[in-house]
């Protein structure tokens, strides 16, 4: 018995969104870090 041929879901295909801007494909648009003077001057 032949394997079923995948068929695109017409609804999904019709509503597929355009490729996002490369700038916003990262998981996060913000990177946060704790900064404490960088050297510990005393």
């Amino acid at each position, binding site marked *: 018995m032949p394997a079923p041929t995948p068929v695109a879901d017409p609804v999904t295909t019709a509503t597929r969104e*355009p490729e996002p801007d490369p700038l*916003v494909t*990262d998981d996060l*648009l913000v*990177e*946060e870090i704790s900064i404490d*003077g960088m050297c510990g*001057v*005393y």
Partner: protein
Amino acid sequence: MLYHFNTRSLSFLKTPTLLSVLENLAAHDTARAACVAAGVPEPDVPLYQRALATLASSQMIVPVALPPEPRRTAQPVSPPAFGLRAGEETGPAGSHPVPLTERFEHGLNAPICLTWELTYACNLQCIHCLSSSGRRDPNELTTAECRTVIDTLQRMQVFYVNIGGGEPTVRPDFWELLDYATGHQVGVKFSTNGIKLDADAARRLAVSDYVDVQISLDGATEEVNDAIRGRGSYRTARAAMACLAAAGFRGFKVSVVVTRHNISQLDAFKQIADEHGAQLRLTRLRPSGRGADVWPELHPTSAQQRELYDWLVAHAEQVLTGDSFFHLSPYGPPLPGLNMCGAGRVVCLIDPVGDVYACPFAIHPDFLAGSVRQPGGFESVWRSSRLFSGLRQPQTGGACRSCGSYDSCRGGCMAAKFFTGLPLDGPDPECVRGHGEAALAAAGRTGAGALAPPRPAGDHSHRKVAVTIGRRPPVRGCDEDPLAGWSLGSGS
């Protein structure tokens, strides 16, 4: 980039559109409306929603309806206690923004913060002083020159300055400069031994926005502290802490340089800080200034380094480190902070006479980038000096590159290597893998007949004046009194 003065959190916005959203927030009823106004495509709104949630959780953005909070609490003040720097490039158009640490390694167009030693004058003679302070340099920057530097820092959008010395509060114009900086959007964190920090000064500081105070204490007991910082210094520091606590200054810092003799007192230091509503800040001893002479006897042993790392991991959320212990990161999970050397890339030093060095622990001609007194001032030095351009080039890692721990320690501290006579592209002298000790031996820096390492530049220590009977040798005022030429009032 955004910087929150109280939480010390730095946020990097990876797209200019997010900055536009933030700028639109106050003018719109909802965050969604601000996104739309900034031109965020509808499919991307969830990404921006998540970004705004992150910024809200770190108090970078706060509801406008919140009433102003009293100072020195864990809550943000109103206006929000952050600085914002626009204009840092986010990378070529259409490319992925590079991670924050990678950006830092290539330098920024302005330092995040810098250390500014206002004076070499100091009432103390700490044996590990990184700047060999004691006597005032008669050529130190004038008040007008300091104001010009602050104007430059404001224009460059430097978030804050770490003011030190010497003892900065003995400058008669210290409070004036403090007010001038904070009035020009440059936050101030200053280190003091507490000599001028009385009840009046503490009350003044307690109501100051964008000012933080670090009281230096190098022993949890008088005996241990005064052996490093001099007789009476423990009581002076404790008195200053008491004044700050009584004035309601919450969260000031108790700043400790970790040595072989106080590492067993870490819990006691924390208890002292807790009792004053303060926060403990531990920093690494460097062989800089007078510290070059005592480093071999004072720096923690290998076993103590491991003990320190474990303690820091156990207290990560409660203790600050000045981001100075990244050489310990190969022991396990990295410590909080950037875990990299920021010298000449995101930090630097301005010394009392206006010379600009790569870092406060590298006061030596090899690390002199220029002077704020030269044409173009500090901005020109930061952006055009050959030294800083070189430090911002990709680092090879040298002998450390083949080490499996290089990615976590990045070769350690530049100044520690230099002043122990090690090559800058080799291991840190306190490398936890033991490569530093081997490198020191290979370079002939240990044992009998060891080669002398480079000496720190400029010794401002109090001089011991020889006195002969019947004839007193000529002396200058500043040879005997670090504050010679000043008439100090009691207003501080």
